């Protein structure tokens, strides 16, 4: 265990936000789910007891008759905002006094940093570069992420769970988001920051970041493994494999979507366009871990090789 190395990585000023991330995200996830489960219990009660549903104010927050339904912003909201501003300022001050913003050597285009890393919030994308060509990881994926995020309200036809925490009523949506945000984004950021060392190689926490480390790793294209040599044929073959993956994943996603009665009901409310958009996004999302697995487990570099692009 190389504690010196571990400390070097963790104490890097720019890695402090990652430490924050690793604390804050689990905390708020727990915080949200505590609320969601409380709400879900209330929902069960209300569903079981229609009478109660008629009279209850339908929130877990306490409410008694006679209490004002609305309160004045001044002072009830403003004081909280004020408090928040004070606390944030204090935290920022302490952080700024105790920890200096990094300033390394003057820029030197001839001396490549090893590892040279993008800012931490883009490390997820940089990590993706390992698995995909830059045009996918650096251009297509970010675009799809943005487009996908924007599309969420337009393809989520579930009218429930609007304005309150719930798990029960939005299982599929929440799982999708969690796997996207936490697993594919935050975890990749953490990997990119703390795990990837010189040569963008994998170093477990506590392993020395050894610049001399050599790993025998031959990644081959799928067609090479199978033994197709003709470019036309393996182009077609690759296309077929990708298409097959799309079809299979789409089918699986569809199966997943139609597993429960409730989901089928929601699915009924979707237009075809909404459905196809969702399929596209979900298939792409599944594609990432699929490619990761193919790369890490089977050492496959490309599945589909064409003269213009490779997947």
């Amino acid at each position, binding site marked *: 265990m190389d504690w010196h*190395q571990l400390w070097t990585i963790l104490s890097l000023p720019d890695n402090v936000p990652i430490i924050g991330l690793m604390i804050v995200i689990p905390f708020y996830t727990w915080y949200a789910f505590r609320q969601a489960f409380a709400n879900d219990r209330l929902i069960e009660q209300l569903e079981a007891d229609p009478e109660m549903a008629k009279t209850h104010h339908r929130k877990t927050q306490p409410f008694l*008759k006679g*209490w004002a339904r609305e309160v004045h912003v001044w002072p009830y909201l403003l004081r909280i905002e004020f*408090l928040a501003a*004070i606390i944030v300022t204090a935290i920022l001050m302490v952080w700024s006094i105790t920890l200096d913003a990094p*300033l*390394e050597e003057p820029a030197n285009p001839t001396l490549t940093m090893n590892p040279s890393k993008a800012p931490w919030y883009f490390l997820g994308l940089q990590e993706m570069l390992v698995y995909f060509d830059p045009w996918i990881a650096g251009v297509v994926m970010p675009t799809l992420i943005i487009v996908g995020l924007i599309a969420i309200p337009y393809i989520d036809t579930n009218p429930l769970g609007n304005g309150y925490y719930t798990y029960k009523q939005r299982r599929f949506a929440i799982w999708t988001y969690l796997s996207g945000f936490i697993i594919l984004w935050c975890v990749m950021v953490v990997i990119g920051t703390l795990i990837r060392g010189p040569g963008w190689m994998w170093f477990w926490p506590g392993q020395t970041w050894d610049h001399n480390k050599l790993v025998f790793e031959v990644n081959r294209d799928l067609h090479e493994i199978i033994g197709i040599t003709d470019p036309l044929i393996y182009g077609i073959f690759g296309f077929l494999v990708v298409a097959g993956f799309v079809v299979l994943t789409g089918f699986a996603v569809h199966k997943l979507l139609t597993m429960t009665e409730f989901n089928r009901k929601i699915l009924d409310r979707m237009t075809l366009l909404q459905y196809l958009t969702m399929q596209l996004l979900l298939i792409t999302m599944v594609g990432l871990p699929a490619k990761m697995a193919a790369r890490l487990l089977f050492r496959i570099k490309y599945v589909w090789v064409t003269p213009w692009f490779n997947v």
Partner: protein
Amino acid sequence: MPKPAAPDIDPVVTKSLSVPLLVSTLILTLTLVWGIYDEVYAMRPWKRFQADFVELYSSHLAKLKPEQAAKEKAVKESAEYQDLQQQLEAAEAEARQRMEEIDKVVNRGVTPRLLTARQTFQVIKSEVDALTYQIEVASSDSAKQSLRDDIAAIKDRDVEITLVAEDGSGEITTAPMKFAVLEAEYLRLQNKRVEMQAERAKLLESAGQIRAKRDAYQANQLAGLNEQQVDGLIAKMDNFGVDIKQIHLNDSDWVDRCESCHLGIREPVEIKAEDVGGRAEFISHPSPDLLKIHNPDEFGCSTCHNGNGRATRSAVKGHGRHKFWLWPMWQKENVQAGCQQCHAREVITEQANVLNKGRTLFLNKGCWGCHRFEGFDKESDDLAQVQQHMSIIADQKSANEKERRESIAAGDTEQDTDKADALYKRAELLTLRSAKLDAEYDALVVDEVSLVQEARKFGPNLKEIKVKLRKEWVPVWLKNPHDFRPGTKMPEFRLLDDEIQKISAYLWQNAIDGKLQAHPQGDAAKGEELFGTRGCLGCHSMGEGDDTQGGTFSANLTRVGEKSNYDYLVRWINNPADVTPDPETGETASHGIPVMPSLRLSMPEVRDVASYLMTKKTDAPYAAADFMDDPQMAKEGLTLIRHYGCAGCHEIRGLEEEGRIGTELTLEGSKPVERLDFALLGHEAEAEGWYNHKGFFERKLKDPAFYDQGKVKAHLEQLRMPNFHLSDDDITALTTFLLGAVDTTLPEHYRYQPEDDRRFVQEGWWIVRRYNCVGCHQISFGGRTSLMGVPLYQDPDWKEQLPPQLYTQGARVQPDWLLGFLENPALSETDIHRNGIRTYLHARMPTFNFSERQILKLSQFFMARSSQSMTYVAPDMEPLTATEQQLARQLFQSRAAPCLKCHMTGNPARDLRATAPNFLTASSRLKADWTYRWMLEPAKIAPGTAMPSELFRQDGDRWVFSGPLPASFSGYEKDHADLLVRYMFQLTPAELSRLVAGGVQ
């Protein structure tokens, strides 16, 4: 507001946030206070340093004050001071009366009178000026005329004016005055005041001169500051302002705040750590001499020392000793690396001994054989450049010629006369251009000839080994040269046994198989004496361990008999420039002539020395080496020789054009540390704090295979750099040199690249170092020659036998003479087995194989070092009158004048005992002004010289001989030393023999 009906209180509206608000506000206030504290105090450690310094330094000064006061008092009580003081007082007293008169008149009479007059005068004058302006702009003549009348009226007006009397008596008179009168009076008073003030200044002049003399005397006699100056420093400390002390270099926008903490650096008092409570950060600069030529106000601090001059937050930041500062402050032992940044052209930089040692090692250990370093092996670079230039000129010329021919041809066929004329003119122009190119080309040819002679590889020519060496010795040597000859320049290559065999085989089979002239044996005992006294030990050493004597510049010859061929040694000692031609091709060594000079020994002497050297051997056994004749081995050897880069230093057949195998080191110190290959040791280095250039270099030099540690590599993949077995001091010196080998960020004008005579000094040192002139001669102050360390020369009788010091050689000799002497130190074409000037010296100035260029550069070097020009026109010398000649001769012959006891006279038997040159050589060799100075005070020119001082004493403005004078001198009013110089410079052989014959011998 409606109250809730239920007993429950609505938490949203009733819960108070006061406590969290209060607490968080308090915390915020605290962080603000913290922020301010951090800004004002924690981040400004220099404030504490300054407070400490003021306290410590003040108390040191308080201690110093009485000491200096006592010293000052002692000086003031000395007779000389008292004398000057009395003179001063007398002069002041003399001037006092008249001065008081002047003061009275000026202060009480002239000045107040002048002021009053001026006031009135100026009022009227401004009125007149205003009217004059109106005249200038008035449109009509009549208006102008009336204005003129107005002016006349004003000037004609009587002004009542009250003035004090001029003599200072205080009398007051009131009188009417017209403008013209007033003006005259005003100007007169002004003049008078100036005159009187000038008179007053003149009165003070003599007192002022005496005072300056007195103060100068005090300053000269007093070590350190006087009491008043110490008081001044104490006052400075009392009024010390705590603030950033900053040097800002405007031209380069360089900022250094080092003195914010290092406050004692430029104090006029020498501050040692123990003076200021052991605080080493407060000491004064250890080398004030350096600061005199590198004034911090012009050079800053971090320009030389590195570090981050702006940073004031902590020592770590300021010294730049953290990961992200590319210019960390040099460590103390490597501080001279800073010199190299700007003095990169030099091999010797005054006051930078560690750095000089590093450069000299780089030069003399042959590092440049494998590693290119700009400036080292400049001859080869220059040669390539000159040759390239020559080919360009040749091309230009042939193009020129072609166009010329074409122009003429075109002109011949042209019908139009004007056009034909233009074409002919063109052809003429081209002819002239070609002529100019020819001249340029010829100049380059001269350079080329010199450079071809100069450029050579560092090590011995291996094409000669067959005639030079004992065959069996070669593999033994290759195994580890340091076993055979500790301290040799040839490094240890960590070769495997079969590699040694293959390399030896290649070298042996590719050596020239020439025939040497056979020589009879000489007398080894005589040879030993010659070896010890002729000056061989200036470069070579003899003996092992503590018995070693001689210089380290060249090989230690303790076991030379084991390896050498006697006939070869004879040839080599006789003339190292002799080479064996290849019997088949007639080819000889392709490059350069050896550094080893010819000592101009006679052939019997040569044989004696060679015979002596052949006795220097042990009876170590040598295994037969038949494999060296195996052609297959040789074939494989070639690859290995190429791999190990042997041809970097040695001439080897088949590898004449081989390049260098090492990294270029010219900018090694600027190479990013990431580029230095720490191999598996990078993390260890980081953890142990040597992950930097210094750490890398030191370990690499100590053990060049260091970074192979832990690596699994095939033998030929391992690091190739051989082990030089350097001492720790050598490593520090080389590290210093390499650290300073940077691509400096300093602006161009900081770099020391003089274009005037100082450049000759820079260039000359390279030659001096290359030929090891300093093995025998002291050239820079404090330098010790190799000969000075040889036991023989410790004997007082042998001290005079040391070769002459050359500190001020340029001032001593005439440049033309020097050129001739360097070319042929025997100063004779026939009688060559001797020294040209000091025949009595056992050590012999050898004949070096200098090129024309080198001789010129060396002469320029010596001249420039003494601020002399290369052109010397002997000053006109007053001819001796017959009487003077008589006088001078008498003085020379007088028993009180010992000149002829030591100086050579041309009598061979006597000259053997002489210790100084012949006077006959003076006029062509010496400069008269130097000779004059030399006679008066030789110890000031050459400390430790045999020439005694105080031969002359001062008598008024002239120098007279200090011993009893011949009677005829009574009435001779001129300078005796000058007389002797003139006599010497006009001495003829005939006069010398007359002199010697009449002498008191």
